[in-house]
């Protein structure tokens, strides 16, 4: 647990120091400091993961040493240790990209990215509904401030995003208030022992779910996402799509897999799963039609989150532990792949001087590395073996196929795969156009392009540790 706390407090401390230092620290040094911070946090998270793997169970910590119920509890499960590691890695990667590639960011990006890192770590570790509310707010405000970094054109999307995010948090807070009113507790584990499926619980869970779905941009509450994610600076889009939307999903998962009574979860599960299926198709179709590259990538987030929602819904319906694994494999694979997609999209936009998909004609020649990264990461989104996306899909498919009455769900996965393939290869096919090449405005930035490729290779590399990952997540994953 100590390592987890260290991994959590390093970025927070660093954020404060960066704020204090202000202009005294040059922008470059601020960047280096933030990257080192994430790196240190990554190391701590790694040790934390080793600890958990050795203990092979969740570790609970009562903050302040107070008794259960009174104290806020933190919980370190295999999943949260993995997510700590994941968040730290993404911050290191995107930090290096933001600091050293041609895309420059303002000084406050570093403060915000440290706060984001810290609040995500706090979220993964928290097992207290109200504490989760605060981390959720932190996450939302950071995200909005980061979108606003893009400058004037992003203010409007940012303010819309902020209002939506506030509303979403309030829905969640209402649910928390009702739960506390009903059970007199905020602790996830204690609540899990107590909850019954009465009306209050039902309404509380429903409003919380609505709020969290809005925050996570799960269909049909996703309409804010493309504008916000597509207008942010490239590094920020990658963080938003890769990490920020995963926070609410974590809480949603916590609620339904632990707090909610089983019979209630079984009632709501199919609804969520169907919504996930629709998200897959609807998001994919929107991505297919989008004229702008970043919007396409943003819509693909909507679609891919459909997989996560499907996994969650089916987890609730069937109460099968594999579904935890499927859900979190999707989240991690999608995070890595999406980081690549946004970085590559940003690089291609800068180099080719266009934001349109049609401007990518000839991209395999003009920006080969970025385009290759885009295609490779796209392969994971489609779920081609042996990528991380395939691992997740495989784990999701297995229980679906095991008995004939579940086969219709597999059809949803099939549809999702085809739609994702359609929008990814729409981009890839255009890039092979040699007849009407769009000439680059500037020379490609080598570092940025290769950095974009890195997470894509990692998501394919997940295959190497696939079996271990699945076992690690299913062993005491809850």
């Amino acid at each position: 647990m100590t390592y987890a706390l260290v991994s959590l407090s390093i970025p927070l401390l660093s954020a404060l120091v960066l704020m204090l230092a202000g202009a005294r620290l040059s922008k470059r040094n601020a960047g280096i400091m933030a990257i080192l911070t994430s790196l240190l946090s990554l190391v701590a998270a790694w040790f934390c993961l080793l600890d958990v793997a050795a203990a092979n169970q969740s570790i609970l910590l009562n903050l302040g040493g107070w008794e259960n119920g009174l104290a806020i509890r933190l919980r370190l499960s295999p999943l949260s240790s993995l997510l700590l590691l994941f968040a730290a890695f993404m911050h290191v990667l995107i930090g290096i990209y933001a600091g050293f590639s041609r895309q420059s960011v303002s000084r406050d990006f570093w403060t915000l990215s440290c706060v984001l890192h810290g609040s995500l770590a706090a979220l993964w570790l928290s097992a207290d509904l109200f504490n989760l509310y605060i981390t959720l707010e932190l996450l939302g405000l950071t995200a909005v401030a980061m979108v606003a970094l893009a400058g004037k054109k992003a203010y409007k999307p940012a303010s819309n995003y902020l209002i939506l995010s506030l509303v979403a948090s309030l829905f969640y807070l209402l649910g928390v208030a009702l739960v506390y009113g009903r059970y007199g507790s905020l602790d996830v584990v204690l609540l899990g022992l107590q909850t019954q499926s009465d009306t209050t619980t039902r309404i509380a869970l429903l409003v919380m779910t609505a709020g969290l779905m809005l925050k996570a941009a799960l269909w049909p509450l996703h309409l804010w996402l493309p504008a916000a994610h597509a207008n942010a600076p490239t590094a920020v889009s990658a963080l938003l799509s890769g990490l920020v939307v995963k926070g609410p999903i974590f809480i949603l998962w916590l609620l339904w897999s632990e707090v909610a009574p089983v019979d209630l979860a079984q009632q709501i599960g199919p609804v969520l799963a169907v919504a996930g299926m629709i998200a897959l198709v609807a998001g994919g179709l929107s991505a297919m039609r989008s004229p702008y590259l970043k919007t396409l990538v943003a819509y693909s987030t909507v679609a891919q989150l459909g997989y996560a929602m499907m996994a969650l819904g089916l987890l609730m319906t069937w109460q099968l532990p594999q579904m935890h694994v499927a859900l979190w494999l999707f989240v991690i694979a999608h995070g890595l792949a999406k980081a690549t997609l946004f970085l590559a999209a940003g690089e291609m936009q800068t180099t080719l001087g266009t934001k349109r998909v049609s401007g990518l004609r000839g991209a395999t020649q003009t920006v080969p590395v970025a385009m290759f990264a885009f295609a490779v990461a796209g392969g994971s989104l489609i779920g081609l073996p042996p990528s991380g996306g395939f691992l997740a899909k495989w784990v999701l498919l297995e229980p679906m196929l095991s008995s004939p009455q579940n086969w219709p769900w597999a059809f949803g996965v099939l549809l999702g795969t085809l739609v994702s393939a359609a929008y990814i290869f729409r981009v890839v096919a255009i890039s092979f156009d040699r007849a009407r090449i769009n000439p680059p405005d500037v020379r490609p930035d080598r570092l940025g392009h290769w950095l974009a490729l890195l997470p894509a290779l990692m998501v394919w590399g997940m295959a190497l540790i696939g079996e271990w990952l699945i076992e690690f997540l299913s062993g005491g994953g809850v």
Partner: protein
Amino acid sequence: MTGLQLYLILGAAVFLLGLHALLMTTDSIRRLIAVNLMGAGIFLIMVALAGRISPPDPVLHALVVTGLVVAISATAFALRLITAAARIDSGQSAIPDKASRLASKTLSDVAEDSRP
């Protein structure tokens, strides 16, 4: 009906009123006010729930204090953001394209040329 129930209903009513207004208006300031009202409704519910016992539940009061800080921070940020967004000329397209940039460049060139 007791006083507590009255305040519970009031809280729910204020929340719903805020939600309704949020969905009905497009003016950002009014939407922000609506969000604040929703928050106030929730706080009302929480305080009413705290009042079930005597002395009132300190945990809920503490949560509301925390919630208030979060609300004022977010409100201040949102207001600043809204005013900043309003300052920006809304005529600009959110995603300018190479073509349109070129077009605007040409236009300004033309303007440059036509200057005496």
